[in-house]
């Protein structure tokens, strides 16, 4: 098969069948889970098909023009790194869906469940194979949306709603927008969205690092990755995401989706790494997060909560290691990070599946209510122990190896940075390791060892069927296999993936026993301290509880809830400040803009006022009319009862009609007087039905304010009209000359006003007629359709 076709199929088969799932569900009923798992398996096998090519060190790059106008192609870019994540997405996806067939009750909305999972799987595979940043972003956001939908799968539970919203805001919203902006900045620097182009071009990479926008670009892209991978302050969404069904948590929120951020960090590694900013941001965030999250994990009583914090902490290991790779040996941290990424996916998914089994059988996830289940659930116990010990870094499991490499890389980076980092970084690493060890032991001890908690546990608890045990067992087998024979994952998975990041071929040697080294010493110290901490486990947890009670504001969740929880109330207050109600307040900005439109050019733009000639030669009889106009206008404003005020307004109208006569426009005068008569009659008829005096007394200050505003608006308009009547600017002339010259010739009309109305500008007249018609229709509608309703 053509390799690009296989990749495209692996991406779009899940999408295609996701759309079909609701219809297929009607036919196959609850077996839809097996059908969906099959799709996952097919995707996985398609990827296996292309893997030899990648292991050989080739990359598959193929693209077609998609939105050429803005330089966006649709393409696939397959290298070791993307293939690794895609394997996780499809492989674990298959196992999870198989597991779900038993885990999810047949009464659940299975079609929706598998539909979302398939959509997620397609998005995840599409994301890693995207060959340009925009395409990557599209699939990236799709994984966030599907994650949102899956966290809120049980959508009538308030906690699900809360958790889903939180994850959406932080990953799709905050992280997504930051990432998009970062991508656009990167494009502004490089002129391309195409990832391989940037990766292959050394001069571009130099350009990026020297560019003014470098820091902003890196920061925004890093925020996107950190939000997705629950690092730094963004970690708060992941614990709440545990409201999702457990297989979903295993799949999205430990094995795959949260790895998207790390994938992105790996992808942009060749572009940004080697700079101080990269080290501080990526490694710094990782180091802080791993300790904080590890510490917070101790307090969790819900095993899923514990696993969530442990996931945050473990992802922080990987993040820190990708950040390390700056100086002496660039590949050391990358190898360790990539290996731990793979290992974490295996042992953490195992543990989540175990939690699902325990919750399914024992009907609780509370570690205080569990205990002593080893005899009733022996197989589960064994699998859980493998997973937890691997996480704790116990040999001969795969977690041990990557933990050792983590220590090695930490020592290495510390040494290259010199004092005081040569001690500080390894110490932080060991502390994180100790905490990990402690909570890993807690999982085994709390669920399976000790005394059976008869008070809270059901009478009969037993191992589940093979369907639920199988996937967990397969993953646990991989954990052991990769631990004892590390060369298998190294040469087939890690080497291609690492060479995808550092962009050169690499051969890695790893074995279970690698001599007495500093790392080994650190591991021994870790186990020793871990056991001590484990003895104090409950004391530490209690101290955390106490602290939280005393200082409720010392938490990121507190601020999240302050901002987004009370958002509706706060926003309502703000919006009511603007949306006050009375129309008078809304008129204010209108007139304000009118005033500013004159003041702004004069003051800000300092436009020169052109000189103007005034003409004061007015005959006395005209002057009388103008004085009367002013008088009536003032009267209309100050008379305190309606009827006389209306009369004053209409008097004003008649006087303007007289002005038209002075200006030798009898038609206009007649029109004005007729219109004025009609409106006055209607006005008076209406006004006689309402009380004749104003009830409210306007306070002085408002009165003065309004007078000021009115006068300013009036002068604004006056000023503009004064200049506007200074005549047409040379060399142009008014179109009215044309009307005067041509009206008889072209239209045969002698009355130029009529000719303009019915000939030259007849469309205006028609329009105005329509306005009258419309007003009539509106009134008719109001009267007719409303009269008979209650």
């Amino acid at each position, binding site marked *: 098969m053509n390799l690009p076709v296989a990749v495209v199929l692996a991406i779009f088969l899940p999408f295609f069948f996701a759309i079909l799932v609701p219809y297929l569900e009607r036919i196959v009923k609850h077996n839809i889970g097996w059908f969906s798992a099959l799709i996952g398996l097919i995707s996985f096998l398609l990827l296996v098909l292309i893997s030899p090519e990648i292991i050989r060190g080739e990359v598959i790059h193929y693209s077609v023009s*998609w*939105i050429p106008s803005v330089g966006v192609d649709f393409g696939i870019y397959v290298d070791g790194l993307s293939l690794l994540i895609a394997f996780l997405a499809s492989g674990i996806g298959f196992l999870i869906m198989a597991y779900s067939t038993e885990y999810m009750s047949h009464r659940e909305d299975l079609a929706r469940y598998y539909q979302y999972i398939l959509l997620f799987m397609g998005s995840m595979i599409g994301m890693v194979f995207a060959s340009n940043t925009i395409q990557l972003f599209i699939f990236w*956001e*799709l994984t966030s*949306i599907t994650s*949102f939908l899956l966290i809120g799968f049980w*959508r*009538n539970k*308030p906690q*699900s*709603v809360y958790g889903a*919203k939180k994850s959406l*805001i932080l990953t799709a*919203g905050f992280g*997504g*927008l930051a990432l*998009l*902006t970062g991508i656009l900045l990167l*494009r*502004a620097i490089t002129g391309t969205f195409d990832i391989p182009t940037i990766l292959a071009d050394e001069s571009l990479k130099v350009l990026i690092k020297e560019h003014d926008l470098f820091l902003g670009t890196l920061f925004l892209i890093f925020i996107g990755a950190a939000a997705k991978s629950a690092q730094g302050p963004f970690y708060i969404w992941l614990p709440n995401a545990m409201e999702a069904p457990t297989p979903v948590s295993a799949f999205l929120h430990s094995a795959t989706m949260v790895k998207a951020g790390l994938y992105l960090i790996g992808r942009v590694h060749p572009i940004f790494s080697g700079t101080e900013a990269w080290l501080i941001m990526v490694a710094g965030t990782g180091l802080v997060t791993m300790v904080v999250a590890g510490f917070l994990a101790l307090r969790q009583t819900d095993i899923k909560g514990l696993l969530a914090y442990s996931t945050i902490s473990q992802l922080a290991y990987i993040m820190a290691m990708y950040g390390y790779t700056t100086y002496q040996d660039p590949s050391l941290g990358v190898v360790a990070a990539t290996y731990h990424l793979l290992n974490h996916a295996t042992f953490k998914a195992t543990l989540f599946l175990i939690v699902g089994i325990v919750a399914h059988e024992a009907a609780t996830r509370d570690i205080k209510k569990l205990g002593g289940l080893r005899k009733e659930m022996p197989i589960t116990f064994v699998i859980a122990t493998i997973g937890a010990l691997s996480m704790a870094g116990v040999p001969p499991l795969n977690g041990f190896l990557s933990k050792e490499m983590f220590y090695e890389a930490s020592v290495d980076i510390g040494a290259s940075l010199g004092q005081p980092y040569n001690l500080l970084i390894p110490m932080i690493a060991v502390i994180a390791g100790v905490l990990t060890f402690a909570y890993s032991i807690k999982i085994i001890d709390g669920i399976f060892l000790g005394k059976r908690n008869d008070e809270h546990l059901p009478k009969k608890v037993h191992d589940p069927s093979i369907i639920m045990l199988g996937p967990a067992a397969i993953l646990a087998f991989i954990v052991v296999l990769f631990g004892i024979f590390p060369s298998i994952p190294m040469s087939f998975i890690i080497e291609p993936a690492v060479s995808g990041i550092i962009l050169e071929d690499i051969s890695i040697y790893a074995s279970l026993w690698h001599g007495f080294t500093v790392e080994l010493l650190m591991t021994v110290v870790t186990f020793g301290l871990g056991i001590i901490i484990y003895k104090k486990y409950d004391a530490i947890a209690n101290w955390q509880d106490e602290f939280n009670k005393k200082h409720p504001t010392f938490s990121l969740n507190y601020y999240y809830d302050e901002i*987004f929880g009370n*958002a*509706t109330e706060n*926003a309502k207050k*703000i*919006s*009511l400040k*603007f949306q006050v109600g009375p129309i008078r*307040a809304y008129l204010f*900005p*209108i007139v304000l*803009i*009118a005033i500013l439109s*004159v003041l702004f050019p004069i003051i800000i*733009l300092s436009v020169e*006022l052109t000189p103007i000639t005034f003409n004061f030669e007015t005959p006395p009889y005209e002057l009388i009319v103008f004085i009367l106009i002013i008088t009536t206008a003032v009267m209309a404003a100050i008379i305190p009862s309606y009827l006389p005020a209306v009369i004053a307004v209409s008097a004003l109208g008649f006087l303007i009609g007289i002005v038209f006569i002075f200006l030798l426009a009898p038609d206009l005068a007649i029109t004005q007087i007729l219109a004025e008569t009609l409106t006055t009659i209607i006005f008076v008829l209406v006004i006689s039905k309402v009380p004749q005096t104003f009830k409210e007394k306007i306070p002085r200050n408002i009165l003065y304010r309004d007078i000021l505003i009115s006068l300013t608006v009036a002068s604004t308009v006056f000023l*503009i009209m004064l*200049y*506007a009547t200074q005549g*047409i*600017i*040379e060399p*142009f002339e008014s179109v009215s000359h044309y*009307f005067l010259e041509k009206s008889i010739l072209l239209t045969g009309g002698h009355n130029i006003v009529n000719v303009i109305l019915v*000939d*030259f*500008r*007849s*469309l*205006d007249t028609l*329009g*105005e007629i*329509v*306005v009258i*018609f*419309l007003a009539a*229709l509106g009134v008719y*509608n109001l009267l007719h*359709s*409303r009269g008979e309703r209650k």
Partner: protein
Amino acid sequence: MNILEHTIVFMIAIPFLVASLMILTRPFPEIQKKLNVLVSIVLLILSVYLFSQVWQNGIIAYDIGDWGKYGIVLVADLLSASMVLLSSIITFLALLFSLDYIDDKSQNTTYHSLYNLLIAGLNGTFLTGDLFNLFVFFEILLIASCGLLIANEKVEITPSSHKMEAVYKYLILNIIATLFMLVAIASLYGTLGTLNMADMALRIGYMNENGTLPWHLIPTALLFIVVFGNKAAIFPLHFWLPDAHPTAPSPISAILSGILIKVGAYGFIRFYYLIFEGNLEIFQPIIIFLGLATIIIGSISAVGQDDIKKVLAYHSIGQIGYVFIGIGMGTVYALAAALIYLINHAISKSMLFLVSGCIVHKIGTRDMRKIGGLSSTEPFLGLMFLVGIMSISGLPPTSGFIAKFVLFDAGISGGFYIPILIAVIFSLFTLFSMFKSWQRIFWGEIKDNIFEKENIHQNSKTMLSSLVIMTVIIFVIGLYAEPLIAITLETAEQILDPQLYIDAIIPGEVR
């Protein structure tokens, strides 16, 4: 002679004629409905034809009465032709929705007549090449939309008094804004001696070149902010919108939010980029500033609403702000982005208003505090609403993502970092309040007694079909944006070269 040469004028004349016909056919309600749908389809086809003509042959000018620039000229350039096409799509789909949604009595009195006049007003506004004629069409738009705003829905949801209050605010504020338009037109006419927009552009261009531009034309031009800003509902001229859009019957809300506020944006582009092209450096920062203020106020206010349609209405304010920063940035790419944003918002927001119409039709309330858990009974509406909010929030694979992407890209590649930063930050608010509303309506416990009301109605197939069509458009643009981007880029280039417009109307004169 080819009758299709008159397509431009048909876009106005046909709805005018049909409006009167609708009065005569009142005794036959079914015929009336079918006739109106038929006319809408015809207009849609004609607008496609008009657009394709402009696309192939360049700008088309049509003299009413053959008076040239001395009379009134209708002009179809790519901008106006695409706006007409957009409005034909929205009005057609909203009409389909209306048929089973609007109270029969309302439909039977004046609804269809007013509807046609609104269409005529829209087409006239976009097609006219004469500033005073624009004023006339603005009046038609205003009065027609007022008439439609008070039409009754089948569900009695908004008390008449609320509608009257909303209409009153809408009417008063708009009339006052138009008064300033009259002043500004008088000022322009007094100084330039013409009302033809191309001629105005020609004359102002000449004056700019010779340094004889009188100072008061700048304040005059700024006065148009009041006019177009009020139509577009940008801050601080938006106060009528949060009352008018939610109280209107849903299909009318869809038109008001979808296309009517875009008239303001169109006005800004046409007026400043054609007539005052030489003074753009004064206006562009102001437009960006107003756009940002609008985004901030609109997005924050939207978060605080409990009424579905009010959330949508405030988002219309916020979203029009994004269009304005695109207009203000003024590069080819930015203008194209503004148009894409505008088109996306028209379709997505109309669709959301129609979905909320379906909810209202079924549940009989707009108050989200009384709704909950609708997903279990109305999964289809939930899906449609989700698509709409994804598009408004700019999430892929919808048209909204394309719009946001090109707008931000245009801003960043043009070096407008601060405006884009603000726009990005407030996108988060949009996403938050949109998804929060969706969760409030469709997730959570089913509230008792919502289905017990007497007034519930089933959503008919015609209503749903217009939703489906809009969804398809959203996805088609989202998945294959190339044609739209290519068209808008071409349109933006045409906008930025006013000489093309002038040549089409006044051939042979160079400014």
